[in-house]
Structure formats: structure tokens, C-alpha cells
């Protein structure tokens, strides 16, 4: 763009301008931006479906769309949001952009594979979009057999292929990051000097590498059953549909941690920075990420408590589920304690982070209800569960993603957005979100099952509240898009380190040069040594 003084600095954005220079780039920063574009499109698509769902549910009757359409709407909402927004949002966008910077590396370990995984992602997305525009898919994002393999007449195959392909993108990204973290750290950057975001990304990558192949094979088994009429889960032949659910959730529960761990990492960065403090209990927060990733693999069958598993097995999984709740609780307590005696600078990213804390708290605590066997029988597959996982995935993951995005936006673009607008947006989203999903807890306990197109009239009041909240939420998200895009054109220059943050990514220019660092950085201290700066008495 236009620069005022001196010669314009070369950065990763202005080094070349051709379309080819973007599409063939191996620069992790440009790839991160390209993910940002695609994920934003997917977020818009998924959001559009969500709005239609909430419109329809404003009245008990099915008066806006047909049942078949409604079923396609919530399925496509789920597929778009889970596989194309939540899973890639923080790792592939923010992770790609800042991870090598944080490590003091020139790039990720395998830049070509990094680009490949973007293309794989886009191809998977195109397959899914194609499935959506040519009739959609109506199985629910969970693809339960035998409905998906035999009964559904929608585009299950095409969507399955899309999800399968996208899985490889996720695997390749995770693999790339793991190797990068192991092998590309700057001199002096020991494991316990790593920013917590890196720990979170590492834990996430572990889940991506270990879990994703299992869903790949599960979707593949579904595909051969549907396409070639093989029978692997087919009860007519003696197969067990519950086995599909086991395999599906072996990935899809840990996938929740793919979604929430990286935003947790981003939150650790933001909270440490804007409290001007070491994160409280650094090693506990760091290891809790790993613990969540590993324990996350031990709890999947809590999605199956009423699905026909043995009651003894349910006991085991319920207990393990409580075990995985502990590391999340530890994180929350540590974040809270970090604020204590901090020098808290309430800039926009911090407001987003505080809103994250509030929503994640609700999401996490309501997990105690769903993990409790006796209560879960009642609330399973009701709106209670819908509300619970939206609090985690939207209230937690998306809020955390936005906190991180606001935090690193000046680094990514070199421009500063309107702080006031960002704070207002955070509050609007927070309020709208609570209004949307708060009533759904009550709806769920009252017994309204999820995926219902029509519902008994007594549920209308709460549904109307929820729909009203959704419109507020939509306003909040649109506002974010508006001021972030506006900042590209009108935003003032951010400077290299607008937040006065520690961390290697803030030592280089904004936007960073194509090679990240002019001089190889050497690390001599921990990640959040704010207190070693000149002390100003608070």
C-alpha cells in the first residue's frame, strides 16, 4: 500500500502481488491468510444455514421450509461449521501464521506440504459445497448408520468424500506442526520457554494425527456400504450400527479438543499479555493441554449412553469423562489467577478473552450434566446438548478464535482496527450468544429433542427468545467483519508491537518480512517475562 516516508519495507504481503504468487506460495503466513479467506466463507455459509434454522424455529409449525429442507439445513450447518470452520479456524489460520514466528523459524518444516494441505482443504470444501448445491445432505453431521448408508436419499457420498478429503488436510497440518515444533525451534527456545499457544497447537496436532485417520476409515466404511452395498454396520446382515458410533466418536470427541485447545492457547497468550504477567502456573497450563489431548481419547462413548452400549461400559466412560474435566478446570482457574495483581489493559482482545472465559465456563460446567449418567439419559439428544456444545464450540472456540484474531490482526495486516468497535462487537456477541443458547438449556431439560423441524407449542416462547438472540449474534458477527475489513483500508499503522507484548512474533516487523526474521533470534528467557521489564508501580 502507500507508504509515507522512506522506502516501503518489504513484507510478506507486498513482496509480490500476482495471483500466482499467492496460489503457489509456500510462505506459512500467506497460507494462513488463504485459510482465513476460505474459513470465513465457510463461516458465512454455516451462519446462513444457522439463521434459516432459527427463522424456522420461531414458530412451532414447519411453515418456512419443508421438513426435508430443514433436515438439510441443520446437517449442512453442522458439516460446514465443524469440518470447515471450527477444526481449521485456529490451527490453520492463526497457527499457520504465528507458530513459526513464535518459534523463531523461517517457516514450517514442510512448506510444500503446508500448501498442499490448503489445496486438499479447498478441494474437500468444494466437494462439500457441490454436495450442498446439488441437493444437500440430510443425515445430521454425525452420519449415523443405517440412516446414512441405506435410507437417506441425499448427497451422502459427495459430502462424505468432502469430509474424507478435508481430513487429510487436517492430518497434514497437524503432522507439519508437530515436526516444526520438534525440529525448528530457535536456539535457546526450550520446551518450557515456549508460548502456551505452541503447547496448545502441539496437543491439537497430536489429536489431529491420532484421531483423524479413524474418522477417515469410518467415513470410508460408510461409503463402501452405501456405494458398493458392502455390509460393515448393516444390521440386516448382523452388523452393528453402534460400532459405527464407537468409531465415529473415537475421532469426533477428540475433535472437540481440536476445536477448543488452540483457542485456549490463544486465550493464554492474550491473558498473559494484557495482564502483563507470567501466566499463573505455566507448566500446569502447558501440561493440561497435553492431558486434555490424551484423556480426550478415553471418553468418546459418553455420546452413546442411551445408544445401546452396556451400562457397565457407560460407567467407565462417565468416570473418565469427569477425569478429562479436571485439566479444563485447571486451565480456567489458572487464567483467573493470572489476572490477580496484574496490570490489566482492557484492549479489545482482552475483552474478547474475558467474554470467552464467561462462555467457556458455562459450556464446561454444563458438561458435568451431560457426563452424569442419570441426567444424561434425560437430556441426551435434546436442546440441552445443543446448547452445551454451542457454548463450547461457539462460545469457547469461536470467541477464543476472535480473541486471537484481534490479538494478532495488527501483526498479520500491519493495520489496527477500531478498538471501540471491537469492544462493542464483543459485548454484542456475548449478549446475543447468551440469549440464543441460554434458553436452549431450559428447552432441552423440558424435553425438546434436537433436530426437530416442528415442535409442540409450549416450547415456543423459549424458541422465540433463542431466535431473537441469534439475530443479535448475527449483528455482532457482521460488525466484526465490517471493522476488520475497514481496518485494511482505513486502519492506522499498527507498529511492530502495538500491545507491548513479549514473544518472538512481536520482535519482527508488522507485517513480517517474507523470511520472518532478518537475524536468527536467540531466546534467553521464558515466554511471559513481563515482570523483568522496567517496573512501573501500578
Amino acid at each position: 500500500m502507500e507508504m509515507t516516508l522512506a522506502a516501503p519495507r518489504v513484507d510478506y504481503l507486498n513482496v509480490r502481488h500476482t495471483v500466482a504468487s499467492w496460489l503457489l506460495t509456500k510462505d506459512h503466513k500467506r497460507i494462513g491468510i488463504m485459510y482465513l479467506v476460505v474459513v470465513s466463507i465457510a463461516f458465512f455459509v454455516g451462519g446462513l444455514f444457522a439463521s434459516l434454522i432459527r427463522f424456522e424455529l420461531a414458530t412451532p409449525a414447519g411453515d418456512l421450509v419443508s421438513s426435508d429442507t430443514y433436515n438439510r439445513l441443520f446437517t449442512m450447518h453442522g458439516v460446514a461449521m465443524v469440518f470447515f470452520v471450527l477444526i481449521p479456524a485456529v490451527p490453520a489460520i492463526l497457527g499457520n501464521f504465528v507458530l513459526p514466528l513464535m518459534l523463531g523459524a523461517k517457516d514450517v518444516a514442510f512448506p510444500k506440504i503446508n500448501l498442499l494441505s490448503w489445496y486438499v482443504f479447498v478441494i474437500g470444501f468444494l466437494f462439500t459445497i457441490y454436495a450442498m448445491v446439488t441437493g444437500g445432505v440430510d443425515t445430521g453431521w454425525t452420519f449415523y448408520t443405517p440412516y446414512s448408508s441405506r435410507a437417506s436419499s441425499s448427497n451422502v457420498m459427495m459430502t462424505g468424500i468432502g469430509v474424507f478429503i478435508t481430513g487429510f488436510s487436517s492430518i497434514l497440518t497437524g503432522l507439519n506442526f508437530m515436526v516444526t515444533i520438534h525440529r525448528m525451534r530457535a536456539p535457546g527456545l526450550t520446551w518450557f520457554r515456549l508460548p502456551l499457544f505452541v503447547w496448545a497447537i502441539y496437543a491439537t496436532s497430536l489429536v489431529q494425527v491420532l484421531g483423524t485417520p479413524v474418522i477417515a476409515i469410518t467415513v470410508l466404511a460408510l461409503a463402501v456400504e452405501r456405494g458398493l452395498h458392502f455390509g460393515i454396520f448393516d444390521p440386516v446382515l448382523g452388523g452393528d450400527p453402534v460400532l459405527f458410533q464407537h468409531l465415529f466418536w473415537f475421532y469426533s470427541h477428540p475433535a472437540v479438543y481440536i476445536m477448543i485447545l488452540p483457542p485456549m492457547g490463544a486465550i493464554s497468550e492474550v491473558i498473559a499479555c494484557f495482564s502483563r504477567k507470567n501466566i499463573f502456573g505455566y507448566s500446569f497450563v502447558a501440561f493440561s493441554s497435553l492431558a486434555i489431548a490424551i484423556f480426550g481419547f478415553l471418553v468418546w462413548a459418553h455420546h452413546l449412553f442411551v445408544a445401546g452400549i452396556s451400562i457397565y461400559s457407560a460407567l467407565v466412560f462417565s468416570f473418565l469423562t469427569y477425569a478429562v474435566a479436571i485439566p479444563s478446570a485447571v486451565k480456567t482457574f489458572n487464567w483467573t489467577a493470572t489476572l490477580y495483581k496484574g496490570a490489566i489493559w482492557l484492549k479489545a482482545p482482552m475483552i474478547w478473552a474475558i467474554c470467552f472465559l464467561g462462555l467457556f465456563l458455562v459450556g464446561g460446567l454444563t458438561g458435568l450434566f451431560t457426563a452424569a449418567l442419570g441426567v444424561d439419559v434425560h437430556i441426551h439428544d435434546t436442546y440441552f446438548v445443543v446448547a452445551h456444545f454451542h457454548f463450547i464450540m461457539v462460545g469457547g472456540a469461536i470467541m477464543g478464535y476472535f480473541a486471537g484474531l484481534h490479538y494478532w490482526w495488527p501483526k498479520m495486516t500491519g493495520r489496527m482496527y477500531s478498538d471501540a468497535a471491537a469492544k462493542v462487537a464483543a459485548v454484542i456477541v456475548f449478549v446475543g450468544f447468551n440469549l440464543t443458547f441460554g434458553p436452549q438449556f431450559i428447552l432441552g431439560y423440558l424435553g425438546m429433542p434436537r433436530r426437530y423441524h416442528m415442535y409442540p407449542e409450549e416450547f415456543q416462547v423459549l424458541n422465540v427468545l433463542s431466535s431473537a438472540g441469534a439475530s443479535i449474534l448475527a449483528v455482532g458477527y457482521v460488525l466484526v467483519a465490517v471493522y476488520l475489513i475497514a481496518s485494511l483500508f482505513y486502519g492506522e499503522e499498527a507498529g511492530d508491537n502495538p500491545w507491548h507484548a513479549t514473544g518472538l512474533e512481536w520482535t519482527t516487523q508488522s507485517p513480517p518480512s517474507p523470511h520472518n526474521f532478518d537475524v536468527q533470534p536467540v531466546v534467553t528467557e521464558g515466554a511471559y517475562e513481563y515482570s523483568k521489564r522496567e517496573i512501573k508501580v501500578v
Partner: protein
Amino acid sequence: MSHISPKSTYYTIFGMLMVLTGLTVFAAFHHLGVFNFPVAIGIAITKATLVILFFMHAKYSSRLTKLFVGMSFFFLLILFTLTLTDYLSRGLKTYPGGAAGAGYGVRQAAPAHGAAAGAEHKEGAAEAGH
């Protein structure tokens, strides 16, 4: 850089793999009761370990590599054991008894002309095609 094994190591390992292959076939033709399966699996695991350690040089690799190899099988074991907590305590022998209706709407019921046709048990690819 990377380890270079003498040729003789490779030939020895190949020989052992051949012997074990012969052994597993041999075992399959002998009635060992409940042990047939564990023996077959045991031999397969031994063979796989030989390949991993020597052909794939895991024996001479970094500890991290070894950790990853161990990790993959550890998580596979988690998948197996925790799924089995369900199947074992359901009563491993109680499996679904086939669905009576045999119909999902798109698939026709089994042959109509009496139970004799059940012997053929053609699971209709043709009917299910639409």
C-alpha cells in the same frame, strides 16, 4: 546421519520372516483351541516388530521416533480396549440377530417364495440400487 546395517542383517531378518510365515501357516492347520488366534496374532506382531526394528531402522532411530511408534500402537490399543469394555460387558456373545423387516424403504424384503430361498440369501444389490 542414518544408520547403515550390514547386508547380512537384512538377509537374516528376511530368513526369520520366512520361517515365521511358515510357522503361522503351520499353526493354522493345527487345532489349538482358543489359542489359534493369539498364536497367529503373536507371530504377526513378532514379524511386524522385526520389520519395524531392522528394515525400518527404528532400532537405531531417535528416542522421539521410538516414542511415536509406541504412541501409534498405544492409541490403537486404547481404541480396542475401550470399545471392548462395551462389547465384553454387553455379553460378547450377544450380537444383533438380524433385522426382521430387512427393509429400509429402498431395499426389498428377502425372497418371497418361502424359506428355501433364504438359502440363497441374495442381499439385493439390484433392489437397493435406487
